């Protein structure tokens, strides 16, 4: 920000993936029109998916995916040591994501089912912050490129990073969608953090809460809503558990 009398050096960045679908990394390559400008902000030191160059002198590590094997723990710890700032991006990194559904089954049973008698290394799914300290989280499945861009710009300009504190309904209403509860569905929009521009509900698909709970949600009232509308509690639980973002609320069986 030359005009204010200070400037910033390019961000030395590394992007790393653990157990996930790599969809979040893929978002970094989207938004084609602003892509060259976006890459201009960054000095990519390590990004296996798009470049063969690898260096360990990055300031910011973008970490995608959850942790499901011992070698991943070690790799993550090294990354944490090298990086000044560690950003968990994507619901897998921030909450465990869909991978966590595995934790609903006994591990050995899961292995037997898929791999028979072959021995397969695997651990219960953990989110990044269960293993190392996370400086910032960008949730979403996948993350929205706009938000990643905004946050990278914030880091580049030395701004404070914040996510919307309000729920998805705000954005959903701004897109003039018909509320899915009016269509007889259970939608997690009222308790899920906004910032996705209500993509799912705008496609008439209920929100499954990939961005995790908004600030200070009123869960008892939400539960009341579901029961008042005579909607299925099982379905609610299935939705709350989908991305593993509502752990603390899901088991509140009251």
């Amino acid at each position, binding site marked *: 920000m030359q005009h204010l009398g200070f400037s910033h050096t390019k961000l030395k960045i590394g992007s790393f993936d653990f157990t996930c679908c790599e969809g979040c990394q893929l978002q970094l390559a989207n938004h084609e029109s*602003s892509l060259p400008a976006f890459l201009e902000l960054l000095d990519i030191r390590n990004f296996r998916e798009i470049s063969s160059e690898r260096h360990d002198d990055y300031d910011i590590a973008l970490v995608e995916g959850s942790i499901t094997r011992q070698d991943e723990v070690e790799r993550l710890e090294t990354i944490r040591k090298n990086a000044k700032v560690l950003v968990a991006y994507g619901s897998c990194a921030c909450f465990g994501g869909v991978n966590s559904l595995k934790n609903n089954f006994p591990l050995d049973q899961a292995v037997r089912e898929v791999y028979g008698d072959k021995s397969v290394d695997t651990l219960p799914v953990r989110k990044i912050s269960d293993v190392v300290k996370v400086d910032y989280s960008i949730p979403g499945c996948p993350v929205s490129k706009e938000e990643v861009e905004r946050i990278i710009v914030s880091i580049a300009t030395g701004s404070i990073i914040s996510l919307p504190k*309000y729920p998805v*309904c705000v954005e959903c209403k701004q897109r003039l969608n*018909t509320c899915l509860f*009016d269509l007889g569905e259970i939608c997690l929009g009222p308790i899920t953090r906004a910032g996705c521009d209500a993509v799912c509900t705008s496609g008439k698909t209920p929100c499954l809460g990939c961005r995790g709970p908004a600030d200070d949600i009123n869960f008892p009232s939400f539960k*009341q809503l579901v029961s008042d509308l005579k909607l299925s509690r099982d379905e609610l639980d299935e939705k709350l558990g989908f991305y593993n973002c509502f752990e603390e609320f899901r088991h509140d069986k009251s």
Partner: protein
Amino acid sequence: MIYKIITKPEFRKFIDALVRQNLSYAPKEVDVDKNGEPVYQFKEVSSVSDIAFDYSVTASSAKHFLMPFKEDLSRFTFTDKDWQQDITYEAQPIVLIGLRACDISAVTILDNVLLNGQFPSPHYLARRKNTFIIGMDHLPLPDCFCKSMNHHTVNDGFNLFCSDIGDSYYLSINSSKAFNYLKEFEISDPTDEDDCKLIERRKLIKHSFKTEVEVTGLPSFLDIEFDSPIWTKWGDKCLNCGTCAMVCPTCYCYNMEDRPDTDLKGSARQKQLYSCNLVDFAEVAGEHNFRPKNGDRLKYRYYHHYLGFAENANQQICVGCNRCGRACLADINPKDVINDLRMEKESCMICASPSPPRT
């Protein structure tokens, strides 16, 4: 105001000509809800057949045509050691068709808030001046309470208002532009019979209201009931979702944020409509929140709507459309909240004790 009569087929021709030539928005059916009822919204239309003239109510109001949910108030362009601020007040002319009397009143209220006083909003003015409004009357829905707010009729704020008198519309023409357009179509002067029909129609509308909200003396109630337990009661239900404010035709609170461009060569100062129900509405640096509880925030929405804020001449800004009540998932609606407040107040009057002490 000039009054004319136009037959319904001729009216359709008129509207068709208008919408084919202008960017126009009118009620359209967008969904069918779980009870089989159609859901309407103001959407872009390109011919008269797109328009649902017999619509009940749109889920969202038309305010965002005048006051977008998100807009850039100004832009900064950074140069080497300096910057430049650019502001444009531009609006594409639009036609809004089918606004109800209360919707038009809401626009007038927004005019008052945003154009009066020391700091009028040029952005709003640019849009407002380029908006051509055609209003239409309707029979109230069971939960409309605009009559209680005295907004079931409207005399101002539109270009043309159409009252349904059977085979024809009774037109109130409030602008020369509208009058000039209509000259190209078959319109006639109202006969005595038409006048009678209009009066009948108005009477019918007036007597069709099923929901009454007693608002006399409400401002002073609200003033006294600031610490009433009912705010906690309703606040406990509120999901802080902001839906009510988004669909409301008069909620206008907002948030400002600077959004630097990805190439860092400029930045937009973005305004986003907000809601006093959202958690960080009154949060300041150091994480201090002036309204930490749901009830505090909910209360403020009611204060703003029914007590009025000093800057807008203490005007009540609710027009009684009940869009907020219909949209609220927690089943919070003005009628119930106000009645509750009134009961609370009246029970206090009976025992002659003051409202509960503030904590």
